[in-house]
């Protein structure tokens, strides 16, 4: 491979998403010009057909102003119901908050149609504006037995945001459709090409050792690409169903692609400092994605997410700084003192006590980002509030990318300190996280939070695998990351559809999903079955490998304890899910027509499940890659 090709391959996963992101940003500037065309399109396309349209053409649905205005015109009296009587409808919000202190004594109704609300990202227009009382303003969407999943009557809460039609700049639809999938495919393609060469030719670098791709990188790239493909394919349906207006949709796309770029950068970075910067960048980008809906709950989730993750990851930076200090004192020149490969090669010269401190901080810090205790608490909140595809991306790959960063440090620490220190640390963290997740799953009441805790469970398993540390365990860890990413993506995307269909994410209020919406229910059930670790899905193979390796070489007490805790989590997850899925359909009429799932919504789910199942059956051409990646981290 020539130097230029290498550079291209290593840059593209970052550059293409960035460019896409920029394109979305630019389209906002050009929006005015495109608007006329979009309006025409909007009138030609009947609203309800959209959900069944092919993926490539269905990305954004323009505002549909006529419809919206109808909803603006709905009497505010119904919306102004007291919070106590209204049923929360927003996905992921289980409780109705009492009115905040600023509600105003008159309980002033929400702004009427056409009123100007805060523009992103500027501050709110006026402190006196009545706070958006989530829950209070939303009525339960009537359950439409004939409608397709997601085509639910519009949510009035969104209405004020669409209230400025003149701001609705638009990217022409076909463009956005392709654009949305370009960057995931770019990542996947680069990963695939590298997967062909790296196992044979060894790692490649570019830009003066700034970017580097070894087997671990390639595996993570493939995982990121695959999950991103699914999530981006699910985006259009999600946005359409959420009735997102164009600027918001554009912001959404912009951020998603920036997010992908940051993750690719984190995976490709050869320099630990750059790695840290990229991971922190994901926090910043996803903060807005978490808060995308701008409800009280989503603002809360975003705040917790940013504060906890930033604080956590700052600790990781402190650890990195200390490692840098140790490296400099070990005689590694400044330019290479954060270079992973060199650090790993010369780790035996690092001062043990400094490295120990650094490693502890890094485990704590990147552990926060990977959803591990003790800084795990952002995870259920953020995952339950983020839009479903974003939750999927965060849970599916962001956690893994953060953990992959941790794995890099682990190599250095193990070489400097011997395996004992990280093993104890990671095993402790893993067990604490697992115990926490299992305990909180036991009486879980919210569907998306349940999935989030399940992510914690799986991340702790991954951490346990890293604690075991043999090549087999590490290969299993990487396989687990991929399998979990795919399965969790499907689960989150399906949970998004479920939330829209049922108008709630409360487990207690969702009944008979398999009877009510068979396709959606089946997909969700299959995803949960995959997450529970049943064959033929990839998680079975990885868990099996992990426990085998654990009993062979690892801390057996930890592995045994993990098995017991996982049993508890299994029971909780199975019991909770069965509550949602099984039983007669919720309507009074037992013979009610089941709700079909649109092709565009179904495609990512089916693809994700198929990929996950394929991983469980065989890794095919990726076997060598997986083995080598396992040996990179665990091979000493």
């Amino acid at each position: 491979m020539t130097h230029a090709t290498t550079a291209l391959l290593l840059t593209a996963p970052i550059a293409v998403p960035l460019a896409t992101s920029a394109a979305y940003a630019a389209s906002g500037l050009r929006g005015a010009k495109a608007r006329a065309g979009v309006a025409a399109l909007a009138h030609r396309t009947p609203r309800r057909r959209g959900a069944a349209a092919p993926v490539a053409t269905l990305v954004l649905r323009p505002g549909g102003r006529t419809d919206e205005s109808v909803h603006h015109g709905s009497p505010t009296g119904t919306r102004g119901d007291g919070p106590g009587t209204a049923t929360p409808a927003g996905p992921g919000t289980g409780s109705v908050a009492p009115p905040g202190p600023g509600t105003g004594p008159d309980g002033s109704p929400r702004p009427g149609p056409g009123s100007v609300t805060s523009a992103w990202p500027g501050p709110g227009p006026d402190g006196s504006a009545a706070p958006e009382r989530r829950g209070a303003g939303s009525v339960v969407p009537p359950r439409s037995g004939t409608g397709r999943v997601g085509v639910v009557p519009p949510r009035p809460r969104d209405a004020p945001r669409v209230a400025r039609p003149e701001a609705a700049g638009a990217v022409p639809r076909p463009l956005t459709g392709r654009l949305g999938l370009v960057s995931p495919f770019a990542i996947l393609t680069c990963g695939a090409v590298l997967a062909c060469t790296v196992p044979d030719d060894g790692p490649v670098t570019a830009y003066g050792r700034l970017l580097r791709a070894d087997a671990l990188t390639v595996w993570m790239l493939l995982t990121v690409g695959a999950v991103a493909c699914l999530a981006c394919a699910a985006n259009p349906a999600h946005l359409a169903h959420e009735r997102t207006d164009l600027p918001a949709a554009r912001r959404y796309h912009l951020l998603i692609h920036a997010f992908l770029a940051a993750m690719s950068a984190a995976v490709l970075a050869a320099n630990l400092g750059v790695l840290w910067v990229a991971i922190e960048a994901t926090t910043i980008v996803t903060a807005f994605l978490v808060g995308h809906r701008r409800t009280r709950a989503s603002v809360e989730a975003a705040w917790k997410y940013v504060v906890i993750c930033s604080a956590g990851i700052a600790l990781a930076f402190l650890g990195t700084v200390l490692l840098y200090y140790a490296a400099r004192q070990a005689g590694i020149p400044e330019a290479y003192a954060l270079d992973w490969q060199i650090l790993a090669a010369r780790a035996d010269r690092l001062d043990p006590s400094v490295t120990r401190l650094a490693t502890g901080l890094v485990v704590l810090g990147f552990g926060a980002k990977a959803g591990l205790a003790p800084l795990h608490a952002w995870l259920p909140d953020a995952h339950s509030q983020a839009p479903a595809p974003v939750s999927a991306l965060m849970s599916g790959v962001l956690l893994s990318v953060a953990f992959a960063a941790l794995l890099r440090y682990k190599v250095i620490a193990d070489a400097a300190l011997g395996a004992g220190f990280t093993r104890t640390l990671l095993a402790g963290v893993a067990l604490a996280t697992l115990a926490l997740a299992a305990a909180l799953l036991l009486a879980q009441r919210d569907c998306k939070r349940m999935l989030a805790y399940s992510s914690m469970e799986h991340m702790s398993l991954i951490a346990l695998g890293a604690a075991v540390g043999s090549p087999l365990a590490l290969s299993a860890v990487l396989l687990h990351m991929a399998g979990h990413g795919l399965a969790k993506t499907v689960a989150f995307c399906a949970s998004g559809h479920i939330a829209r269909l049922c108008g709630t994410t409360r487990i207690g209020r969702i009944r008979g999903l398999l009877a009510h919406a068979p396709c959606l229910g089946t997909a969700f059930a299959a995803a949960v079955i995959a997450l529970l670790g049943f064959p033929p899905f990839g998680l079975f193979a990885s868990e099996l490998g992990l426990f085998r390796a654990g009993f062979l070489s690892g801390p057996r007490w930890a592995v045994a304890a993990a098995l017991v805790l996982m049993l508890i989590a299994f029971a909780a997850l199975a019991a909770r899910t069965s509550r949602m899925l099984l039983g007669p359909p919720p309507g009074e009429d037992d013979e009610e027509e089941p709700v079909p799932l649109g092709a565009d919504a179904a495609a990512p789910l089916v693809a994700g499940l198929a990929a996950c199942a394929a991983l469980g059956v065989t890794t095919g051409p990726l076997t060598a890659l997986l083995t080598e990646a396992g040996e990179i981290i665990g091979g000493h």
Partner: protein
Amino acid sequence: MSPAESATVVATGLAGAGVLAGMLLPTRARIVTVGLCTAGLGGAGMAGGVAALGGARWSAYLPGLLPLAGLHLAVDALSGLFMAVAGAVVLAVAVYGIGYACGRGPRGTASRGVQSSLPVFALTLVLVPAAASVSSFLLLWEGMAVTSLVLVLAEQRERSTVREAGVWYAVMTHVGLVLLLAGLALFAAGAGGETFAQLREGAAGMSPGARGAVFVLVAAAFASKAGMVPLHPWLPRAHPEAPSNVSALMSTAMVNLGAYGIIRVDFELLGGGPGWGWLLVLATGALSAVYGILQAAMASDLKRLLAYSTSENLGLVLIGVGAAGLFASSGYPVPAALALAAALLHVTNHAVFKALLFCAAGSVVRATGLRDLDRMGGLRARMPATAGFFAVSSLSAVALPPGNGFLSEWLLLQSLIHGMTVPGVSTAIVLPLAVAVIALSAGLAAAVFVKALGVGFFARARSAGAASAEESPPLMHLGMGLLAIGCTALALVPGTLGNSLSRAVAAAGLHGGRPLAGGGLELRLDRVAASLSPLWVTAALLAGVVAAAALIRLTTRRGRRTNARLWDCGGGAPTPRMSYTATSFAEPLQRVFDDVLDPEQDVNVTPVRESAYLVERVRFQRIVPDRIEHRLYRPVLAAALAVGRAARRLAPGSVHRYLGYGFFGLVALLLALAVGW
């Protein structure tokens, strides 16, 4: 291509075709195609198994499948026996299943998910015995678990109890998996490799402690699959709630694999285990046998009764396996081989008659919508064929000649009686008790099946559903007929199995000669003075019946029988409500075993409004709960729920608290590092 290999390939191919058909075809074609594919798969499995029993061996390694491990398959006579049994049952039940799901069958059974899971489930049943490495075994094992879970949930729309049963099943299965995974992984770690060949070699080098741990973990895991007390609660829930063809498979081929696992891993791979371990197995089997059949005696739900009877029969099998292990570990291979052969024969017999019982019960459930014996009755007249099949299988199940169940229990008793030659106080105490347990369970089994047959099928209909029952379609009869033929063949000429059983026993690592010497018409034991000629006994019985009938014919003045009213004590014709129900039938037994069963009684006296001294209504209720479940599982579940509720306080929503976790984590880490960790 060896027969086992071609059987595996054909079975896999048919399973794949069945899955596709289950997903793609319209309802009726789907059911028929899936049924035929599954039946073919069963046939292939049976053929492969029989070939292996005949001495053919086969092994294969597919490195590309199952990431991180690869798939190892191997077939010997022991696996062959279980493959053949599973294949045969699958074949018959699949034919039955076509009729069961078509037409007025339960809605859920015909659905795509259920129909496409069925062939996979059948495939795993056939292939689990062929797995030859820890990973392959667990893969197939879990495949079996997940497909059976889907199948158990088939009728989830109709009854809310299905969900509960499904969760119990899933969780208990997972408990089993956790034990199994831990046990096998420990074994693989100790033996230094995960293929069965490596385990076999490495087992000798393991420390006694490790061997003991592996033994107990693995035995517990398999015991839970076999429905052994106290890991049984899934069984009386899942089997009744599953569609009957699925119950038939689960209650036979699947639970058999629990016994297979113990024989394969604890007996063969581990090279025998500690004596105390086998005592434990034997005790578990004995406990389960008595407990299972007692609960069956109390049950009035027909399928629950059959499920508990499964627990009993597998308990008997484990008594045999445990005894075999005990004898082998004391160095007496001859009685050990006999006991193991008895266990294997009982596995076979039980599979065939229990499948037939469940199929017949399914036929009743399908026709009447009833599982409650108290509300059945009179089905003999409405569904003669089903009643006949149920009678045949009941005869096998009650361990009385000329049923096939008698033969294996006879063999089991023989092995225990002759095991007294093994010295040791433990045998002197354990074996008589085991014999008593077998006898008690046989006696109770007689009561149980008299109840099931007599109350369920005889007398008169006690509900509208039973009164309007219609006979099932011919395909179901065909399936049941195949099983009935199997029962009969096993009952009359068990000697033909002699050589196969000997090979299977040898494959389990017992080279104590051939336990069954006789071939053909006689069942004669080798080196032990005992023999049995089931065919002659049956013939003599028939001759006796014919002679007695002839006697009546000759002596009676009028040849024709005349009908007459039942004696009504002069109080008008007895109504169906007066007849004995299953509950009343079981009442004496329940009083006898009062202390064990611990029934819950509830008397509600409602006085009339005007006066507290006048009674308007008295409501009496007595429930015989599963005591083990109540005492062992309820507290655990309650505690888990309490922990879950309490754990919510860990996530109170306060960002300060969340940051505090991190802060204290950091401080703790720093403190640990500062004090010099």
